[in-house]
């Protein structure tokens, strides 16, 4: 039984040796010396040919057992050493995570674009199309189609930059509606559109006036569009832009292209309606104008106003942005001070 006890001894010694190893290199040497082709276990297995047929399988299986347990011990130790090594390396690689990151600049979208995009997406979601049109317009579309013939007093309300007697800088985006209405085929369904863009008025630039500003006008025309639909649509808009708790209020007004015409107030988003400086202590803030499309505007586009009608509204992204962010000078939008622009990071 000397072979078996040799193996026994080999195992004890080997395991003890493995336990104390502290480098992978030494561990590898031990592995080679114990389990290698010239190692003692191989020797034992070679010596088995001298054993009897009964002994051979017993010693053989014991030898395998010893080899397996040594292999396992080496493997465990190896893992242990590697983990230790890795930990040492990681520890040496420690950095100051509070140093600033390498700068990556991202540009901002202009706040007026943000307001405009927000409103465009709202209406796209409600099945409207967004229609662009010329900024240099014909008097015909800017005024006459909108129920403001040449001598109409309302033209005084909109001081106009004329280029010639018949060509001008559009004073509102309504001419886009006139152009679209004129072309629209109602057999293809109702007309639901908004027209955003730059508009121009003959004004002296100051804190509340700008010769260039923006408008978004909306128009819905079909066989049965009601003023209640207008109210509901504006409620959706007001809640979307100014907050879910907002209420709206319509007041009679006058525009040549709508009848009835209303001004729309939204309950003050600063004070909730109790009264504050923003709402001039009224609880309400005027945000847009709207109304039912004047029959003349419908007829001017070659459509029968007895069958078709609808609503229209117009709002100013400049005013919306001023209200929403407490901006008190409209010129800020067009002077483009980078510190002003960079405040508006999030498009929501």
């Amino acid at each position, binding site marked *: 039984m000397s072979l078996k006890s040799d193996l026994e001894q080999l195992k004890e010694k080997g395991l003890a040796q493995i336990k104390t190893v502290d480098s992978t290199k030494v561990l590898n040497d031990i592995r080679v010396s114990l389990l290698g082709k010239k190692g003692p276990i191989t020797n034992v297995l070679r010596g088995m040919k001298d054993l009897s047929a009964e002994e051979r399988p017993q010693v053989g299986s014991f030898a395998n057992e010893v080899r397996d347990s040594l292999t396992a011990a080496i493997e465990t130790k190896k893992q242990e050493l590697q983990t230790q090594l890795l930990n040492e390396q990681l520890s040496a690689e420690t950095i100051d995570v509070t140093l600033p990151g390498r700068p990556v600049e991202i*540009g901002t979208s202009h706040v007026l674009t943000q307001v405009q995009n927000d409103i465009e997406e709202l209406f796209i979601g409600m099945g409207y199309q967004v229609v662009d049109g010329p900024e240099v317009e014909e008097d015909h579309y800017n005024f006459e189609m909108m129920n403001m013939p040449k001598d109409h007093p309302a033209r005084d309300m909109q001081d106009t930059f004329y280029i010639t007697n018949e060509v001008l*800088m559009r004073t509102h985006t309504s001419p886009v509606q006139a152009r679209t209405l004129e072309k629209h085929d109602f057999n293809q369904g109702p007309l639901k559109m908004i027209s955003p863009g730059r508009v121009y008025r003959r004004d002296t630039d100051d804190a509340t006036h700008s010769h260039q500003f923006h408008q978004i006008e909306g128009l819905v025309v079909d066989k049965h569009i*009601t*003023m209640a639909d207008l109210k509901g649509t504006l409620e959706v808009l007001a809640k979307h832009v100014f907050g879910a708790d907002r209420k709206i209020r319509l007041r009679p007004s006058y525009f040549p292209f709508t009848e009835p015409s209303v001004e729309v107030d939204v309950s003050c988003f600063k004070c909730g309606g109790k009264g504050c400086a923003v709402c001039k202590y009224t609880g309400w803030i005027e945000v847009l104008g709207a109304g039912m499309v004047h*029959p003349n505007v419908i007829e001017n586009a070659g459509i029968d106003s007895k069958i078709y009608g609808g609503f229209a509204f117009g709002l100013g992204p400049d005013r919306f942005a001023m209200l929403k962010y407490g901006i008190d000078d409209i010129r800020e939008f067009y002077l483009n001070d980078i510190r002003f622009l960079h405040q508006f990071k999030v498009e929501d």
Partner: protein
Amino acid sequence: MKISYKWLQEYINLNENPDVLADKVSLTGIEVAGVRYPDKGLKKIVVGHVNSIEPHPDSDHLNICQVEVGESEPYQIVCGAPNVAAGQDVIVALPGSRIANNVKIKKSKMRGVESKGMICALQEIGFPDNVVPKEYANGIYVFTEPVKVGEPVFKYLGMDDAILDFDITPNRADTLGMHGTAWEVGAMYHEKPTFKQPELTETNTKAQDLLRVSVENKAVVPGYYLRIVENVQIKPSPMWLQIHLWNAGIRPINNVVDITNYIMLAYGQPMHAFDYDKLTRKEILVRDAKAGEVITSLDGEGHQLDPEDIVITDGVIPTGIAGVMGGLDSEITASSKTVVLEAAVFNGTRIRKTAQRHNLRTDASTRFEKGIDTASVTDALNAAASLLAQLADGAVAQGILVGNDIQPKDAVIAIRLARINHILGTELTLPQVQAIFENLGFGVTISDTDLMTVSVPPRRWDISIEADLVEEVARMYGYDNLPATLPKIAMTPGKFNPQQRFIRRSKTLLQSAGLSEVISYALTTRAKAQQFTMTADTALTKLDWPMTEDHAYLRLNLVSGLLNDIAYNVARNQTDLAIYEQGRAFTKKAGQIRPIEREYLAGAVTGLVSGDNWAQGKQVVDFYYLKGILDTYLADHDYTGDISYVANTDRPELHPGRCADVYVGEQFVGFIGQVHPATAKAYAIPETYVFQLDLSTLLALPTTTLVSQSAPKYPATSRDIAVLLPDTVTNAQVEAIIKRRGGQHLQNIHLFDVYAGKNIEAGHKSLAYSLTFQNPEATLTESEINEQMTHIIAYLTETLHAEIR
């Protein structure tokens, strides 16, 4: 229009808090900008009677007055007003009182003499300067009618009132008169107003014997009426009349002028009075002015008349500008005896243009241009004549002189209840709607179940079609009561069109690359409008009548706006800038009127990309920084044409050695370059790089349709090659040759080094490329690649005299 609450109460039964009334009016009809209470904040201001006055011993202008104020003893008050006199009833602010602007009055000593309070001018108790009668403008106010000493002054001066400031839209000129306003307010409270038409007694003198009247151009003077009042005594108006005027914001002058103003305020009918004795020809001829005619208006201004003006003449010479202002020559003065009263209807557009032309916007012209009640013209004239008899002892001559007689007609509009509900989305009943119309003073007859025939009096000339009646119903029913619904109509797809998507994507890309969006003015100076142009169509579009030369021309480029923005920021010490604008350039061929509006995209960078920091040195913007952004932007679109940059030395605003035109295939799409130092200097900006693209062109270019391909199965192989070249040879030339000789498996050319200087022959540079070869079908062999490299090298050597290193 300033609306006196008390005046309204003369016509309707009204018991509403004025603030509440103001809110209601705002929500039903006309925006009320504010409510003013004239006596608000004032206290202890009473009527005093001046018993005696004596000069202050130590002053040359102060008087010591003994003033009865209803106490047991008179108060001694020192007064500096030049017009103070014994026997006057005056306004006294007692010690402890508050006068205008919250000023507190205390017992005091004036130059050693005790003074218990103050005798007040109207301004001191809150009257605006422009309504104080001229005789009291520079002194204390003196009551002219019996008042009770010691009583608060407010009721005597009409200050116990509320003044509502109506902000009237152009269509609601009916409320430019108190009668119209009473109808409007009455309708809200279901109160029918009552107006007393004063009685008129005429003398036996026939007006037509005194004056002839005729209207030449009847089309623009649809109504023209005169009355003549003789033996008029010019004097101040009674208090009630003065109060009505000053609460409406009009200064009392004398009884004749005041009456015309009062009638205008009451009826909304402008009135004019002129002196009969100053008419040389005893004739009134109303006609269009003649070119070259002149007139001096009541305010003393001279006017060159225009043939589009309407004038009142004495048959030959103009005596007034019709509907706008009377002439100085026929003015009512203290000595006037016989007064001609005029009530007329003039064409609104003509009056508006005349008022504009002569810069003479008056209460009268405003009313004529906005429209008056054609049914009450003669009522107003008769009321004025009656008041002249009553308040100026005048004798009204018999009959009205008619130059043109207007025939006022109701507007008759048929409308069905169903139509109203169809438009409003309501379920109103016939009685509800009928009541609204009747409250407004409209006649209603009903037939065929729900068909209403509505008669609208001329007072509401703004109503002529169905939609106008719908508005009346909507506002009187109340917009708050309207349901809120969404349109119940066929579904329509909502989506952005290709151009809108393209523009949105463009903005996102540039922002991701660090550029911030700006919005500049499209109107600019002549010089800036025509810089950085990209087409041959560079005719300028100029405003006919610009506000300033800074914004007089439409831009042909976006870059000049960006440079303005950079200058603005640099002047404020913001020197590291990366900005872009997306907007329109207005190009035009010579002779065209309307420009073509092209969508452009432009960017500008200056200063540092990033400053010095612990991790890396500062990075300064340069041509290639901006070009990299442009490369990325253009690569996003997969154009079928190749993108190429061609040096251009001829763009006047750009550095001749650092400027390239950008092409997609054969199509010019824009440029990139450094702003010419001279241009930069003119803008006061540092070294700046810019690009500008024509998005309208880019959008129209063909793009490849993507067909997905699997990732390559066979490995790619790369070879490096360095070539020594004369400086004049460009990278583009080298790459073109490599591409041409690289064979079908050349996948990519990557320039990884550019070197000149040490160890390189002067006037030469070394370019080093890494070439990647790949065959999707098989692994490329060494010899296949070698063969291609040999071709490339041979060709580079041959055509560019390159030396392979």
